[in-house]
């Protein structure tokens, strides 16, 4: 039961991560399209700036749960290193609880923000004027997912026999864990 929850939440976070990555790629492509249109064809670019800003920003909030899953949000581990295994586990639990509290608070706050934008039909003040609720939706979605991911972590920490993956520094490192096979033998 617990295992199933943890697995499911992990997969859901991965799904968000894929969405986030796609948004980053789209932002990159649209920036290039904008430069091309303006520099080569000298035509007006109306929607590109808003699109790029909002998709990249939304991507950051949507990607956050996956980064939590992978222990990629850096934290201070100095105290942890000084403690015994048992106290370390307890400290991690406290940290996870506090993280959960923050994410719950932000879930409430960003929901209020999203709901106002939706109900008030707020637009971004630009020529394109996209409805603000679309990018703002990423915030409550991201924080809700962060809450679920934190609950999963707390379950991992409190259920005996489950290995915790909190602050795995390797995950924070770009591409360290991947492509090892690509590294060529060094000439001696």
């Amino acid at each position, binding site marked *: 039961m617990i295992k199933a929850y943890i697995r499911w939440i992990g997969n859901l976070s991965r799904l968000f991560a894929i969405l986030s990555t796609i948004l980053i790629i789209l932002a990159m492509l649209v920036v290039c399209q904008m430069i091309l249109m*303006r520099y080569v064809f*000298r*035509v*007006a*670019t*109306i929607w590109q*700036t808003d699109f790029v800003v909002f998709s990249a920003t939304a991507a950051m909030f949507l990607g956050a749960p996956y980064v939590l899953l992978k222990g990629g949000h850096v934290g201070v581990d100095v105290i942890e290193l000084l403690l015994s295994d048992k106290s370390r586990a307890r400290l991690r639990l406290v940290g996870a609880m506090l993280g959960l509290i923050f994410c719950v608070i932000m879930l409430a706050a960003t929901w209020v923000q999203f709901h106002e934008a939706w109900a*008030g039909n*707020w*637009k*971004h*003040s*630009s*020529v394109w*004027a996209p409805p*603000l609720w679309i990018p703002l939706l990423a915030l409550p979605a991201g924080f809700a997912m962060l809450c679920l991911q934190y609950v999963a972590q707390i379950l991992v920490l409190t259920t005996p026999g489950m290995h915790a993956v909190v602050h795995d520094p390797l995950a924070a490192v770009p591409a360290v864990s991947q492509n090892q096979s690509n590294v060529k033998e060094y000439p001696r």
Partner: protein
Amino acid sequence: AQTVLKASHQFPGGKGDIRDEMVQMIARDVAAADVDLEIQIFPGSSLYKPNDQWNAVTRGLLDMTSFPLDYASGRHPEFSATLMPGLVGNFDRAKRLNDSEFMTDIKKVIEDAGAMVIADAWLSGAFASKQGCITSPDTLKGQVIRAAGPAFEEMLVAAGASISSMPSSEIYTGMQTGVLDAANTSSASFVSYRLFEHAKCLTAPGENALWFMYEPVLVSKKVFERLTPEQQKAILAAGEKAEAFFDEEVRKGDQLMVDTYKKAGVEVVEMSKEDYDAWLELAKQSSYKNFAEKVEGGDALIEKALAVQ
């Protein structure tokens, strides 16, 4: 005990920007009125981001702000009319506009949202280009321009210009490297960002100015209603004085810009009545039209503004 109010704006503090000076003046006058009221100023977006000030002031989290009203046009589309090409024309007309039916409507929207105007302020702006003088609409054709305000962008696009959006701090580098051919921003920014080093021609506001932006000093209604009658009176009096101060100084600012650019060897022109009318015609087909479509009662609002002599 002393009541402390927070005032926020996005302009540099203590550097002589008139909008900052307006708020400082209000703070000084309120303190001098001796009504147990203190105003703390947070200049240069040091508290709220420019766009976030509206939400904060209408909710009563922020007490006072010098705020470009168009920034809130995403929430109240009527506000786009306060940064609409050719709706103001010159400073004397701006003054008459303040007491018109048009501004009564706008201020009603502001009050219903939870804020109130204590000092009116219309800021003028100019155009500058590396290519040549921007006068009639066809002089802008094919140029890449950074414009201030969506309604302006709509009109400039209709004139055949290409728009590049960037913060005003990038305009200098933009014009220098050639990303931008032209720029449209407030007279104050034209001086402080030293665009005369790259501009060939400046179109000064003069009698037929296209670009005007409404940047009043707002007070949160929630907060205002909590104050004592003496405190309220002190704030309103200080606002009125600041408004008079602004009206005088803003004209000097335009003159300073013209002098600076002339001294730097930049050609300085103004729009003729015909140029202005041509732009207005273009605006009617683009920005005004979009505004009327987007905003309920939008065409009536524009008519009221145009009806002012």
